[in-house]
């Protein structure tokens, strides 16, 4: 069994204790129905315990491990959009980014929300070249493409929002641009900057 197949099952709070109180068979009188209702009330979660049980605080290594596992499982949902080799190299980058030995102890592990945005960005933009990976102090993933002196940096925020910044030389002039954009519009807003300079795989460009 691989690590990814390990499931940690948290019981539904509404079911906790249910097995300890066996309900009697229903009687027909209103009195017996009242008893049943009260017993059900005993089993139901109290208002102060309506959510998940507070999880014990995790160490950094466990947080990073869990994040990495969640990212890989999420990637499996869109596996059909990625070449196997491409995906395997992306996983290697994630392993490297989230290595506990190199992670800044003051940084939170990146959330699944930021990874979901990152993943959807890859499936929408479909770059041939994978980005370099990074993370902000508040746990957002960063995708960075660099082509000589031209840089594109995309910070993935939750809920399909990206914060992008670029600098590129266009017709001999140095240009800088930055914005926060819904993911759906990212390709459109990058279009004037010829994003192929970052996304196209240099190795696959035929020699002139």
């Amino acid at each position, binding site marked *: 069994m691989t690590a990814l197949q390990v499931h940690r099952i948290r019981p539904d709070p509404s079911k906790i204790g249910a097995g300890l109180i066996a309900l009697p068979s229903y009687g027909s009188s209103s009195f017996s129905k009242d008893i049943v209702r009260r017993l059900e009330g005993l089993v139901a979660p109290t208002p102060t315990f309506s959510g998940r049980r507070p999880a014990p605080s995790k160490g950094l290594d466990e947080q990073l491990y869990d994040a990495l596992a969640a990212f890989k499982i999420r990637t499996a949902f869109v596996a059909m959009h990625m070449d196997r080799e491409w995906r395997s190299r992306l996983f290697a980058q994630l392993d490297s980014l989230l290595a506990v*030995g190199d992670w800044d102890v003051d940084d939170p592990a990146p959330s699944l929300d930021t990874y979901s945005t990152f993943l959807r960005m890859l499936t929408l933009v479909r770059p041939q070249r994978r980005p370099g990976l990074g993370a902000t102090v508040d746990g957002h993933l960063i995708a960075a493409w660099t082509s000589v002196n031209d840089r594109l940096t995309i910070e993935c925020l939750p809920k399909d929002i990206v914060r992008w910044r670029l600098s590129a030389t266009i017709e001999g002039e140095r240009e800088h641009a930055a914005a926060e954009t819904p993911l759906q519009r990212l390709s459109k807003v990058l279009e004037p900057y010829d994003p192929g300079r970052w996304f196209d795989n240099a190795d696959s460009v035929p020699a002139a």
Partner: protein
Amino acid sequence: MPIAYLPPEDHVVRYVPWSRLRKDENDNVLGVLGAAFKLRDGEDYLSATWAECCGGSDHQARIEAAVRTVRASNLKVTTRSGFAVGNVGRVKEVCLADKEKHKVRVIHEPEPDNKAHTALRGWPRNNDPLLELIAEDSWSEVVLNQNVPP
């Protein structure tokens, strides 16, 4: 005690964790990300180390001495981390040239575990494009931790 501003020709060295180094798709380090210069919530200034305060006969020796100073401090320096080297005057210029005209003061504020500790006060907050520009231009020299001998 008078405030000790760093001379514009001097250099500041900032520790950059692996996650904030700019890399290509094969994890080759190309530089630093603008995020390397972002203040955390609650931070009033950006921390760095004054290279010229750490000794050394030339630029490279001073940078390596600064790296060793950071290693000896309480900061946890990891194997694949790096150090960004910036020129004081150039960093201040770029911040002042921004449309928000950040007037950054670079002050020697020694700490018990780092005698060369420097605080960059008035550092831009919520100006990510400027931080990216700083990473690309004025504070872009990178030294990898593993390339500096003990």
